[in-house]
């Protein structure tokens, strides 16, 4: 238990220190050292408890309850202050509603309910702790170098607000640890709200008009989710008499009728946090923030809290039809729609954002299906998405600072200009969409679990969504792979801290893909067995090994095989006399120099955002409203 407490409290202490440190060198040392400590501690926790079923710690504390209440009030105060400053009535009103509800709840209802086991962990918490502790703190280290460049690009005399930035990053990590370790739902809710307000402040960090607007969009959507969370707490206490998350889930599985409303409300909270349609716009807007923020939000924190909640609720979805249908359909439609819309994007960060939302949709849909096989797939999607997406964000962030653009069309020749970075980026992209890498193995497991359920709708959605996924990743991958003569290598000015984090993610990615059968056997299967009593691995171990051998082969080719060819070099054919292969210029029939240009396809008229987004948002709103209506009326077809 000391370990859990350490992981939650230590980042808070670091954050407090970083908030007052103004010296670059001192901050570097503190961030690197504490990230190392957090990483080692979380790895140690995982290693010492590998394969553990649920481990519960008898811990309840009136002091912690009071602290949680105080934090709740503080959060509301911060939001209301900003809402007043920027005249955003909706955000202020929602914050007031939430703080009043939660105070009424905590003072009037909650104090009678005692949660004996305040803290716990199981294999899913351990996996999440690994993701938060290693990937999350890796991103914090990366931010050191990135934010130096960022400060450089700021106008002369601008206030250095990096202490706030780094303090928020570490508070974020602490809150995430609290979410995955707290069994007391009130504590969990407090941590949940901390992540909301932290990302609000991080998105609005640059204080441009766009950033402020997007930050408010985020806070409004997530406050709606937060209010749903409080509603779930009310019902949980009144109808079920418990605030223990484990007891809540167990009771909901035994008696889905009594838990119908709180489960639907919690699922809704998860959907808002995981940026599912119709709430996808907050995550798209979040990319105005500095890239480390995006990396943190997309890979190891925030959205992962949402899907963590949904995966936890998966056993309930298996027996409770209404919330299950809501989660399944919203997830499936989000996956399909966002994969389509990603095709029409040329901004690298926007492609990444859409791909994140799409993959979260897939995880959500798997959680909604709720069978052991589907949860196996969801867990792997969480893991591989976290690693690959953080790698990609870090690469894009570094590329942006060195080539001056985040547009994919400008990444032409990146393989020459930044040969190492381009390879890492290609590795990350391949992991996202192509077999035998991790994400595709998870998708494979998803197909198996769906086909065993006979879930036709999701199978069709998956088939079309996967095809769209191929399109938008392959054309980006192709753009990166372009090779010319010997342009200037601009890679030498990348900060060491940035390289460190990028390499860490790449190594994690390769190790996780190659050792996938072991990850399944020692981390994922124990959780499935603990929750369901049966295994969930739908793909034979032999086939997993075939995949990992192929991954090893591709990685070797990518990092050792490329660029070794010794054939004679010839000019590129351009239907004229080639003047310069690298610049793609040729002498045309009038002896003038022409330049050949080629641009990727974005198919705006078929997959454009303006055309597609309203339809998807509309469908998802109808589904969610219908699910709540059915829940309040108390109709749950699975019960009949």
């Amino acid at each position, binding site marked *: 238990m000391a370990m859990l407490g350490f992981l939650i409290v230590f980042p808070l202490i670091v954050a407090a220190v970083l908030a007052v440190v103004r010296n670059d060198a001192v901050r570097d040392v503190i961030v690197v050292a504490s990230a190392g400590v957090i990483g080692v501690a979380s790895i140690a926790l995982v290693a010492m408890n590998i394969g553990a079923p649920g481990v519960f710690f008898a811990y309840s504390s009136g002091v912690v309850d009071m602290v949680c209440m105080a934090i709740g009030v503080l959060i509301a105060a911060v939001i209301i202050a900003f809402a007043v400053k920027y005249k955003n009535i909706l955000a202020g009103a929602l914050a007031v509603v939430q703080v009043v509800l939660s105070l009424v709840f905590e003072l009037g209802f909650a104090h009678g309910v005692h949660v004996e086991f305040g803290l716990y962990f199981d294999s899913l918490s351990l996996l999440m702790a690994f993701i938060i502790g290693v990937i999350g703190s890796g991103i914090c280290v990366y931010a050191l170098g990135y934010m130096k460049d960022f400060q450089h690009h700021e106008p002369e005399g601008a206030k250095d607000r990096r202490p706030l930035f780094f303090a928020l990053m570490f508070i974020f990590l602490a809150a995430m640890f609290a979410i995955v370790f707290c069994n007391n739902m009130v504590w969990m809710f407090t941590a949940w709200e901390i992540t909301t307000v932290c990302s609000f402040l991080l998105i609005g960090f640059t204080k441009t008009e766009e950033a402020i607007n997007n930050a408010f969009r985020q806070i409004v959507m997530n406050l709606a989710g937060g209010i749903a969370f409080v509603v779930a707490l009310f019902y949980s206490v009144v109808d079920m008499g418990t605030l223990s998350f484990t007891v809540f889930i167990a009771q909901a599985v035994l008696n889905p009728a009594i838990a119908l409303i709180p489960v639907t409300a919690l699922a809704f909270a998860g959907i808002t946090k995981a940026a599912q349609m119709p709430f996808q716009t907050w995550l798209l807007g979040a990319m105005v923030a500095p890239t480390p923020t995006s990396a943190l939000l997309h890979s190891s924190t925030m959205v992962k809290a949402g899907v963590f909640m949904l995966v936890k609720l998966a056993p309930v979805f298996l027996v409770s039809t209404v919330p299950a249908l809501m989660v399944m359909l919203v997830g499936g439609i989000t996956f399909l729609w966002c994969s389509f819309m990603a095709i029409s994007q040329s901004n690298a960060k926007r492609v990444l954002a859409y791909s994140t939302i799409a993959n979260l949709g897939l995880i959500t849909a798997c959680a909604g299906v709720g069978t052991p096989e589907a949860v196996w797939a969801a867990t792997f999607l969480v893991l591989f998405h976290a690693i690959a997406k953080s790698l990609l964000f870090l690469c894009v962030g570094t590329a942006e600072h060195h080539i001056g653009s985040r547009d994919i069309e400008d990444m032409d*020749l990146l*393989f020459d200009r930044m040969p190492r970075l381009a390879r890492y980026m290609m590795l990350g992209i391949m992991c996202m969409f*192509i*077999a*035998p890498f991790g994400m*595709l193995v998870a998708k*494979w497991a998803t*197909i*198996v679990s769906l*086909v065993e359920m*006979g879930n*036709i709708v999701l*199978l*069709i959605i*998956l*088939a*079309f969504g*996967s*095809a*769209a996924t*191929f*399109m938008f990743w*392959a*054309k980006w*991958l*192709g*753009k990166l*792979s*372009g*090779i*010319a003569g010997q342009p200037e290598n601009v890679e030498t000015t990348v900060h060491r801290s940035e390289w460190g984090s990028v390499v860490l993610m790449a190594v994690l990615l390769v190790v996780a893909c190659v050792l996938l059968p072991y990850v399944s056997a020692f981390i994922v299967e124990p959780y499935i067995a603990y929750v369901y009593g049966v295994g969930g691995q739908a*793909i*034979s171990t*032999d*086939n997993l*090994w*075939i*995949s990992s051998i*192929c991954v090893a082969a*591709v990685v070797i*080719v990518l990092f050792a*095989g*490329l*660029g070794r*060819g010794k*054939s*004679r*070099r*010839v000019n*590129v*054919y*351009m*239907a004229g006399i080639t003047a310069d*292969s*690298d610049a793609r210029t040729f002498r045309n029939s009038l002896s003038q120099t022409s330049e*050949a*240009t*080629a641009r990727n*396809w974005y198919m705006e008229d*078929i997959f454009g955002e303006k055309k597609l987004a309203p339809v998807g948002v509309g469908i998802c709103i109808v589904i969610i409203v219908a699910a709540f209506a059915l829940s309040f009326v108390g109709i749950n077809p699975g019960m009949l």
Partner: protein
Amino acid sequence: MTMLSALIGTLLFAVIAPILGCLLAGLDRVVSARMQGRVGPPLLQPYYDVRKLLEKEDASVNSVEKTYIICALAFAAVSGGIFFSGGNLLLCVFMITLSSMFFIVAAYSTRSPYAEIGAHRETLQVMSYEPMVLLFAIAFFMATGSFNTASVFALELPAVVSIWLVFLGLLYVLTIKLRKSPFDLSMSHHAHQEIVRGITTEMSGPTLALVEITHWMENVLFLGWVGLFFVWGNPISIVLALVVMVFVYLLEIFIDNNFARVKWQLMLKSAWLVALVCGTLNFVLLVF
């Protein structure tokens, strides 16, 4: 066991499939010539062509193109090996997609404007046929209760009886996969409908030979998918499957010679519509 059989299967496939694929390509050229009222080349002409390509000088626009092509070839062999050794059909589908990806990346890496256009179109072709191919694998599971291709030998009736709609859908996208007209957008075997030769523009000599061999293997694999619908517990069914495979290939040649290339919009929309209709209807028929 699966691993060992997949390995042996891959090695055998890498030897046998190019031979069969070469003969198929020769047959294609002879039959096409007859359809056009020509005598045509000898049956072994594709073999002579590739042998000549292999003897040519190794020249290319960059140092990586050939590496990517070798990867495409290797993973096509793995895919075929998994399929014909009775392995997992989904894994087979994923591996052949990986092979296609390497082919596309090879073309992109040259930065030739013409090759890039070919690569864009090839990416679009993959996107067009991928839903139907995935639905084919899923329907196969629904019909046989397993993703392993070996499971057909335990059937009492061939899979085509229950998933004939998916079979028709697969036939439709097979034209795209085989890069036959009207869906030969990324590169065409017909000189008259190509300005510059699409995705293989910058590939020459031994590299182009490897591309040809990869296509031979792919063709054998795809016809294997067709045959899979017609095999059941009775050993004679294999003969039936072979007859159907030859017939389907002749049908593809016939289509190839009678249609002009279509625009990409039509290819994408029609292939997705076919997948949606055939897949959904067939699944509904199976489940209810």
